């Protein structure tokens, strides 16, 4: 567990200093929600009800970028080998990287929430459910993303392969998080509780798989 904190701290420090997340991922997410606005027209009657779904699609697309970034950091200067030889527990490395990605995504979601409220005119009600859905969905996304990121890392085709592997698996997260947000935004947050448990199951399952599977993934190449 200490290893996880170390790795997460390292990744977050790199992000904080390099500002790639700030300079590229956040503007990307902003561009996505702007484009959705253009695609669906200026009418708030259309945009406001769809805002939950659009928000989560934007998050999903951005999480691909964040995951790729998380492994691009390891690719240069043989950092990957150094990480492997560092004697850190593979499960710890997995948890640490997933934690760092989750923290970055949560920060992004906070900003996007603001953007959705302003641009689409979504009224933010049921804040507790909104927040819980964010946390559960983000942990699940980060876990799947890191496992697949490790699967695809080091391959020449990783930029195209990762989205193809990652997005279909993340479909239940999109569904669950969107419905939970829908219920919350409609002012009936209790309707989202079932979806929250679905998100939680997904998160727990994939964190468990990642913890077990990361060892064999790291020893390769």
């Amino acid at each position, binding site marked *: 567990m200490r290893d996880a904190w170390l790795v997460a701290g390292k990744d977050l420090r790199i992000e904080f200093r390099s500002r790639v997340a700030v300079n590229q991922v956040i503007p990307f997410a902003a561009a996505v929600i702007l484009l959705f606005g253009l695609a669906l027209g200026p009418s708030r009657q259309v945009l406001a009800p769809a805002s939950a779904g659009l928000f989560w699609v934007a998050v999903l697309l951005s999480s691909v970028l964040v995951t790729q970034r998380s492994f691009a950091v390891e690719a240069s200067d043989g950092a990957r080998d150094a990480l492997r030889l560092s004697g850190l527990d593979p499960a710890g490395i997995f948890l640490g990287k997933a934690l760092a990605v989750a923290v970055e995504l949560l920060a992004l979601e906070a900003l996007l929430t603001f953007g959705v409220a302003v641009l689409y005119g979504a009224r933010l009600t049921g804040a507790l459910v909104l927040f819980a859905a964010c946390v559960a969905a983000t942990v699940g996304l980060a876990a799947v993303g890191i496992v697949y990121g490790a699967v695809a890392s080091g391959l020449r085709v990783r930029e195209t392969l990762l989205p193809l592997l990652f997005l279909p698996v993340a479909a239940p997260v999109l569904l669950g998080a969107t419905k939970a947000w829908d219920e919350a935004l409609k002012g009936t947050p209790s309707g989202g509780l079932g979806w929250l448990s679905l998100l939680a199951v997904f998160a727990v399952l994939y964190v468990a798989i990642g913890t077990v599977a990361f060892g064999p993934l790291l020893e*390769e190449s």
Partner: protein
Amino acid sequence: MTRSRILTTTGVLALVGIAATVWLGLWVTPNAVNFGDLVRLLYIHPPMAWVAFLAYGMAFLSSLGYLWRRTRDPRLDRLAGASAEVGVVFTGLTLITGSIWGRPTWGVWWTWDPLLTTTALLFVLYLGYLALRRVPGDPEVVARRSAIAALIAFVDVPIVYFSVSWWRSLHQAPTVDLSGRHLYVHGSMAWTLLLGFVSFTLAYAWLTAHRYRLAALADREADEGLRQALDERRAEGEVLV
């Protein structure tokens, strides 16, 4: 020798079985009361879906076996790859035949039914898996990587199914009965359906076995090529000495 004779026999049986299914399905069996002659699609669509799930189950089990250290064996990896590829072919056919059934029955080519949606996602998931397998690399690394991807994909299937069916039930959409569960299957229809299941399963076995052999040949060829290259480099070094 006996092994390839068994394989040939399987192939012939599958061929005869499929031919008989087509003959019985198109010409011998009667039209059903509520479905008209569309009921004939029933003899091929459910067997397609069954074979697809069988193939993915097989790929999952062999991937699991590969990941477990004690049973780690390149043959299991090849089996997983072969089975998944055949599974993708049958999933595609499941989607197409389902769509062809849906159009005249409900007037749409597609409906967001849990089964349909899950199958479509499954199709995309395993296309990704096959794409990952095709990326060249050290065979053992490729195998381990693919096994983990297969594991993740398979675990996702029940979650997807559950979430989509829940999503649909909340939407209060007009429910459609996909597989004709209310259909009373009897007599020659039941036998034809059974024959369809058996012969397409045999076809799955035959296809997977041949795909497996192809993979084994390709692996051996890669090994030979590597050995040859190594020998040449070694010979060069010895000339210099």
